[in-house]
């Protein structure tokens, strides 16, 4: 087993192999569709975990960034005729700027006040998306042009799956690198003791702002991809309930565990698939999962399981 230690990131390789081989068991477009949802949710969860799991700052508003990202690229490409390769990065920039501006006052808060402020921000975004019907199409939503390569529009789920899978692997790689660096240590110290971090020279507010922006941009990226993939956006994308679902993914999989966030995203996205026929139970089950996990597995699935395996850490 010694050779395993030589490989820099065994988990990442396992993830890449799993994503590459998953299509072998997919037999229809619907399964690709579900898989793509898993991947975009995972992208949000990995980012939110950087903020919540590592830096210890709660956000109940990340669906707002997801929805805003989706709408900015939708509006720029559909209403203003921007090419998609420009509207997509523009959406990320818009969300990054908004997150940066709002982060300073928001992250001076902590605990319940931070929860309230992020929640309020998310809800405000969804209200604006629903109300500014002249730009966003209002509650009914709007059509979004597809991505086109060399004049050919891409609709095939397989291409989308490949694109988003590659982006997710890159995201996970970058997130693991970040945590495993002085920046990551500073973030974890902010969680552990802000005062202690501050007196050894860590600009705690600066790091909180940084990771807030990073996690917002990852949520926006997932939103942008979702918009062009599905060809349609509605204000529902920014719904408060999705913010809660993203938090649930992080908590269920395990705070401060990147792979935990992935596992959480997989379970929570697939859950409705197993509940077809009893759809009405979904919300009750989601609520029960949240309570049971926090009460009986406060560190989440992956860290709890990792502790059972000797030598396992992340």
């Amino acid at each position: 087993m010694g050779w395993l230690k030589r490989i820099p990131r065994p988990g990442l390789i396992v993830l890449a192999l799993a994503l590459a081989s998953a299509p072998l068991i997919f037999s229809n477009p619907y399964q690709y569709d579900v898989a793509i949802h898993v991947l975009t949710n995972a992208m949000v969860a990995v980012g939110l975990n950087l903020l919540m799991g590592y830096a210890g700052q709660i956000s109940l508003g990340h669906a707002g960034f997801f929805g805003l990202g989706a709408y900015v690229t939708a509006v720029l490409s559909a209403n203003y005729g921007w090419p998609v390769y420009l509207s997509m990065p523009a959406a990320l920039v818009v969300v990054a700027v908004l997150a940066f501006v709002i982060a300073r006052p928001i992250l001076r808060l902590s605990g319940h006040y931070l929860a309230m402020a992020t929640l309020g921000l998310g809800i405000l975004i969804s209200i604006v998306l629903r109300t500014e019907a002249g730009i966003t199409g209002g509650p009914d939503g709007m059509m979004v042009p597809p991505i086109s390569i060399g004049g050919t529009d891409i609709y095939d789920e397989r291409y989308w799956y490949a694109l988003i899978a590659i982006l997710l692997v890159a995201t996970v790689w970058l997130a693991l690198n970040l945590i495993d660096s002085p920046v990551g240590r500073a973030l974890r110290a902010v969680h552990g003791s802000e005062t202690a971090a501050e007196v050894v020279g860590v600009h705690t507010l600066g790091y909180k702002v940084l990771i807030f922006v990073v996690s917002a941009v990852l949520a926006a990226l997932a939103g942008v991809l979702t918009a062009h993939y599905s060809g349609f956006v509605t204000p529902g994308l920014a719904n408060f309930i999705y913010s809660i679902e993203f938090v649930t993914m992080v908590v269920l999989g395990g705070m401060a565990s990147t792979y935990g966030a992935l596992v959480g995203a997989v379970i929570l996205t697939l859950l409705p698939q197993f509940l077809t026929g009893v759809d009405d139970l979904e919300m009750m089950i989601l609520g029960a999962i949240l309570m049971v996990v926090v009460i009986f597995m406060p560190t989440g699935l992956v860290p709890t399981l990792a502790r059972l395996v000797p030598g396992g850490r992340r």
Partner: protein
Amino acid sequence: MSAILECRELTKSFGGVDAVADLSFTVARGNIHSIIGPNGAGKTTLINLLTGIYTPTAGSILLSDHDTRGLAPYKLAQRGLGRTFQNLQICMNMSAVENVMVGLHLRLNRGFLAALLRLKSVRAGDRDCRARAIELMRFTGLENQIDQHPSEMSYGALKRLEIARALAAEPELLFLDEPAAGLNANETHAIGALIREVAASGVTVVLVEHDMKLVMDVSDDVLVLNYGRKLAQGTPHAIQNDPEVISAYLGGA
């Protein structure tokens, strides 16, 4: 040689009550200085003022002749200020050595892009950082607890861990807030020896402490506070024989 720290007419009030009032003193470079006083004399408030956790209501604090007004604690750390805490501030989500590594933050490549891409400089820096942190844990007598989780460590060990972390930032001026509180006689003696070693390495140490034996053993200079004001300042010998100090401690207060 100029003073490393000077306070001029420093005042801090909480809701009209002066926790520190009109306090002026200097700390000369080098040596070990102690701040003592009965409970509620304003020692912890003073240390929080000096390290930027509180902002003064009036007066000024000069660090090597530069006014520190409005500087956040992390800025003061960049200017060579370090401290430990009376109520331990250990990151319970990190291992012992990682706690010390946080102390080395300012010495490392902190670039965001470099971290994202895990450049060679980051990897090399982290290796050196860990080695240096282990060295400091050895210096503070924690060589057997490198990768331990803080929840498994004794109270005395955590106090040392705080000192190791503070030293990692290579401070010129180090505040130790009650390092002996909660320790037994042997542990206190050992902490005294450690404090002397730290001072010998060229760090100016300011000690806030209740244990008089420790204070009188290690200090070169003692500042006595009472009701937020300066009661006396001098050598341990002079302080021990100061009638005002004696009456403040023996119930005159």
